[in-house]
């Protein structure tokens, strides 16, 4: 594989170091060294750059890996890649530490000494895969395929697609997402307002004003690269024009630090404040009448065809969300609400962020809907500089026939959720624990953890960990030891993403669909096995329809199939230096014919050479793309929710159904509580929340850097609160909540709402590699989560807490 040994390599480094040292001093470049080094004896270059997909987060950035002598030794951004345009976030550069991490698992492990004991022995790949396949076959025959539950972590691209196909072909309805850094909690709100099941983009580069409702735009965006670039463009992309950014949140976050104004608010009050702002806009007539009248639904009161009168958005907001009331609920002064409303409506295109932000599941669906209504009132929906809605693209769709057993399994109710979830087609792992523990509606027979660590990343994590013990067969497909797979029978580590063929569908904030195609940067280590090969081996042993669901002989062929689908779509083109704006002009001038590759071979070559494919065409205000379910309008009052309430009636009876279709934000004034006088707010540390990140020392090092903290978990306490309790920054305190206790060092921080304490989420893994396990504490163990009334998802905000000096 490598054409020099480690020893040679080290010698070479030393020699070069010396050369650098002396050269640096004499200021003469050692050219011969360079030439010798870059060109091999055969005259071929020893250094090359390979396009790859960044594996560190779901953002889908394109990398150019620098490969020298068969070893990846450097990371650069792919300058032609529309997602990152050559930029690299902190995680992207750390991909090398992930690739070569000494704690990465490289061969299958079997648990010995009982599950949870943490003792493992290596097993042969074939043996491990046969065990899994045999067990799956047994379960399918004995109790039915619905007994399998697949918990999929961050992995998107090929592996995820294949796991979806496999799970469906096997006949299990239990394909559950557990993405700590992807924030899919946004999907129900998107369904409710637009009838689409996807995130939105925010074209900040063209925005004239941003109000960010605890969006964590710079702390925890799903595509941190794009978030950073958009922020840069927003700030200084337009000479002479520097728009304002207001950040609202209970804590002075990284985003707040970079904003022009920070508005402190009680945890969970974002939606209420948004409606307070909407109130002022409505009362003062500051909203976009044209958009609201032509594209809004449920804005005014209306009477349906059956003659039933319904409550509209306007009347509700004017009635319930007067700034004075909002002030008493959220702690935001009335005057600020008026000012924000006026600024927001006078600096168009204005964007309200927070719909897809928050990290740590901070926003309830109703809050997201309320925030998004501000975008509608400002007329920013699918407008330049406003909210963009990508056209959906699904590749290698699971549109294949399944056998009869699978058909029966697929109609079983999913394990991960009560009615509320099904109503919004929302999957989330955090109610799984209940189902597993209770054995209702049926017992889970096998649970697969695919690159997921829900035990760590969920408020219900500890409970899920206990529940896992009752599942007869748990298999983890993950690269590191973590808090979840310590409960597994088997760990089957996949090869690193840079060793394999892969693809990824992503979107730019401007709304373009991007497919990244990634090829192996270097050969995988001898022991490793490609995850597609593993799955195919299992499927092959199970046979029948399951085997047919994975028809491609290997991952390369599957990626080839992706290219075929893209080629056959007849749209878009391989990445090139041209940017999207020029594309539209180019297409116009050519009579809407793309300079498209002549044949498939050329197309594939271009896609591989460029690193991927983009559909560069995006026209604003294509309403059938933006609003995809009836009534094809922006839902101030959600028709989608109304229909779902018809299909799945709420458990507590009828209630005020109209009210439930509107953004029903309620935040009560805090009650006096002698035992737990404070509110605990948990926020996500930048860079650290994903499956591999906590194992990387570089990322641990910088995670708390903007707070001058690293490698530990701390509790932030407002100076007033600290003074009241008599704390200084050298103290340690015991933070208590109804869920548990934790001793943490104190950080006095003025960037909090008084009465609120904050703990960062990211450290505190109990199991993991040498840089991961035992570093800090996990605040998820303290969170007494509320349930989102619409989806049942855990909300981490506002746990009552107490602080005691130790």
């Amino acid at each position, binding site marked *: 594989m490598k054409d020099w040994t480690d020893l040679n390599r080290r010698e070479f480094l030393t020699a070069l170091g010396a050369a650098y040292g002396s050269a640096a001093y004499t200021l003469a470049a050692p050219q011969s060294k360079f030439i010798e080094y870059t060109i091999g004896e055969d005259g071929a270059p020893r250094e090359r750059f390979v396009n790859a997909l960044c594996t560190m987060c779901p953002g889908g950035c394109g990398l150019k890996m620098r490969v020298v002598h068969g070893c990846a030794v450097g990371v650069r951004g792919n300058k032609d890649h529309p997602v990152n345009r050559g930029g690299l976030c902190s995680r992207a550069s750390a991909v090398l530490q992930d690739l070569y991490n000494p704690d990465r698992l490289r061969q299958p492990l079997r648990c010995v000494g009982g599950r949870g004991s943490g003792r493992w022995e290596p097993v042969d790949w074939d043996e491990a895969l046969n065990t899994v396949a045999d067990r799956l076959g047994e379960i399918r025959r004995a109790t039915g395929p619905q007994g399998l539950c697949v918990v999929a972590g961050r992995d998107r691209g090929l592996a995820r697609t294949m796991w979806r196909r496999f799970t469906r072909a096997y006949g299990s309805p239990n394909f559950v997402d557990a993405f700590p850094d992807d924030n899919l909690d946004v999907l129900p709100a998107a369904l409710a307002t637009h009838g689409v099941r996807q995130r939105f983009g925010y074209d900040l580069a063209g925005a004239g004003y941003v109000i960010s409702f605890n969006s964590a735009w710079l702390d925890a965006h799903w595509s941190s690269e794009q978030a950073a670039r958009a922020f840069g463009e927003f700030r200084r992309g337009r000479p002479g024009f520097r728009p304002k950014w207001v950040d609202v949140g209970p804590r002075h976050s990284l985003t707040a630090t970079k904003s022009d104004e920070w508005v402190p608010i009680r945890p969970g009050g974002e939606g209420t404040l948004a409606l307070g702002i909407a109130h002022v806009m409505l009362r003062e007539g500051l909203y976009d009448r044209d958009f609201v009248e032509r594209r809004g639904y449920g804005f005014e009161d209306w009477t349906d065809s059956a003659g039933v009168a319904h409550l509209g958005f306007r009347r509700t907001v004017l009635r319930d969300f007067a700034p004075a009331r909002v002030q008493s609920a959220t702690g935001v002064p009335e005057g600020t609400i008026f000012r924000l409303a006026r600024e927001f409506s006078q600096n168009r295109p204005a964007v309200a962020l927070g719909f897809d932000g928050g990290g740590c599941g901070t926003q309830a669906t109703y809050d997201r809907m309320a925030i998004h209504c501000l975008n509608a009132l400002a007329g920013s929906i699918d407008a330049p500089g406003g909210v963009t809605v990508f056209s959906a693209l699904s590749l290698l769709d699971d549109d294949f026939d399944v056998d009869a057993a699978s058909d029966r399994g697929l109609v079983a109710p999913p394990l991960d959720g009560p009615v509320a979830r099904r109503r919004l087609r929302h999957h989330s792992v955090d109610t799984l624990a209940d189902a597993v523990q209770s054995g209702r509606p049926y017992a889970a027979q096998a649970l697969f953890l695919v690159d997921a660590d829900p035990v760590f990343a969920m408020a219900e994590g500890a409970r899920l960990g206990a529940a896992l013990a009752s599942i007869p067969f748990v298999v983890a497909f993950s690269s590191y030891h973590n808090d979840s797979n310590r409960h597994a029978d088997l760990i089957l580590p996949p090869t690193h993403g840079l060793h394999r063929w892969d693809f990824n569908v992503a979107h730019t904030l401007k709304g373009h669909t991007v497919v990244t195609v990634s090829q192996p940067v270097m050969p995988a280590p001898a022991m490793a096995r490609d995850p597609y090969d593993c799955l195919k081996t299992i499927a092959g042993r199970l046979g029948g329809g399951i085997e047919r669901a994975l028809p491609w002989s290997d991952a390369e062929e599957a990626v080839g199939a992706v290219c075929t689908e893209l080629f056959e779509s007849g749209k878009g083109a391989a990445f090139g230096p041209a940017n999207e704006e020029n594309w539209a002009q180019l297409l116009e001038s050519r009579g809407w014919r793309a300079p498209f590759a002549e044949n498939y071979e050329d197309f594939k070559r271009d896609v591989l050479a460029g690193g991927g494919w983009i559909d560069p065409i995006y026209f604003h205000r294509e309403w059938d793309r933006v609003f995809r379910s009836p009534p094809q309008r922006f839902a101030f009052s959600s028709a989608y929710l109304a229909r779902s309430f018809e299909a799945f009636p709420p458990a507590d009876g009828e209630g005020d159904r109209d009210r439930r279709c509107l953004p029903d934000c309620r935040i009560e004034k805090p009650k006096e509580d002698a035992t737990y006088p404070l509110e605990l707010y948990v926020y996500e540390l930048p860079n650290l929340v994903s499956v591999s990140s906590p194992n990387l020392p570089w990322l641990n090092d910088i995670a708390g*850097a903007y707070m*001058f*903290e*690293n490698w530990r978990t701390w509790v932030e306490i407002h100076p007033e609160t600290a003074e009241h309790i008599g704390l200084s920054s050298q103290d340690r305190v015991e933070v208590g909540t109804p869920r548990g206790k934790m001793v943490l060092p104190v950080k006095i921080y003025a960037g909090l709402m008084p009465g609120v304490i904050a703990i960062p989420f990211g450290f505190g893994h109990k199991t993991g590699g040498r840089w991961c396990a035992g570093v800090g504490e996990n605040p998820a163990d303290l969170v007494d989560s509320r349930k989102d009334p619409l989806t049942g998802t855990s909300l981490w905000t506002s746990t009552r807490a107490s602080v005691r000096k130790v």
Partner: protein
Amino acid sequence: MMQHVHTDPRRGLPTAPSSNIRPPIEDIKLLEPILYTGPKFYITVVCLLAVIALGVFAYMTQYREGLGVTGLGRPVYWGFYITNFVFFIGISHAGTLISAILRIVGAEWRRTITRSAEVITVMVILFGVGNILIDLGRPDRMLNVVLFGKLRSPLLWDVCSITVYLTMSTTYLYLPLIPDIAILRDYTTKHRWLYRMLALGWTGTPRQHRVLELLISVMAIVVIPVAVSVHTVVSFVFAMTIQPMWHSAIFGPYFVVGAIFSGIAALIVAMALIRWVYDLGDYLKDLHFNNLSLMLLVMCFAWFYFTGSEFLTTFYGNEPAHMGIFWMKISGPYAPHFWVMVATCFVIPVAILCNKRTRTILGAVIASICVNIGMYLERFIIVVPSLSQPRLPHAESIPYSPTWVEWSILAACFAAFTLLYVLFTKLFPIVSIWEVQEGRENSIAEVTARLKTYLPEPYVPEDKEQPIGATP
């Protein structure tokens, strides 16, 4: 043992080969440490060697593992070793400078104390330099200082100045030692080869005496500016940077004063020890301690004056970066060090030494030990606080505290210094014999004569018969 010596004072003294060198019969007590060695000596040496061995082990650990075994880190890159360096170089001012000044002004009481002072200088410089070498990350590249030396660096100034100082101090110690070595050569039997070699053929002729006296007085004059320069340059290591509370023009004289201050204190302690161990009460008298105590008292006030000006200037200027350090010292994490320093460098010694009743030998020793502790703390809070709060904000790491390695090396430095000092006293008389002899023989007359020159001629009436006041 002492009894035994008194009964047979001439044991071990051979007959004199040359007549110019007088046998040290009157001062035979001064040769006792050289002639007789008791078990106490061996116990002391073994104890000291044990401490030194610990220090050597600590250094070996540091050499193997790197400076990571110390408590240093970013931003406190300098700690104990640099403090030791400054402290030891400071102590070194005890000897040469004090002795030179006393010689130049012709203070006759100097005769019995100059040697012990000069020895301190030579021995202690070695440890000052040694601590710099211990502090190096790459001691193996030490010679780069010679190969690639850059004279613009204050560290190079230090290297030059300390080298000159060490050479001159050694010479200055050696020159007055020659006649005593000749005495040892001629009247003792131990290590004769050594004494013969070191005596450089001294026969005590008047010409040799003239040359020696000349050389000593020239050295005494030249060594003073060198000594002053050494500590000034040590202060420049700090003062030439732009770091807050280092970048100060007063640092040169401040360090020199501090050096003389701690030097005198060290000398008092050393003399008291010699007096106690070798029973030299006849030579190191209350008068010596009283005089040195008064010098120490003067330096107390000088030190207080400089410290006061330094802190007042900073406080009055009120520059944020400087004030950060200022408050760290006055009321922050280094306040204990600071206030103990003020107490031990000023309050306690002044209280003891101002009062004639407490200005005894014991009082002087207590004051001196206090001063040395205080001066070590002073060096420490010059080095560390300025580093621990750099101009740019920095992450709060564990505050600097020395590890066992640094403590061991510090202890070993003191032990090794003591050992060298003890060994010196076992090889050479710690009180200059010939100078005492010379004092007895010549100086009383000389001083009487000189005193006469200070005074006006007494009035002698022309007519002795005429009573004063009588009118002719």
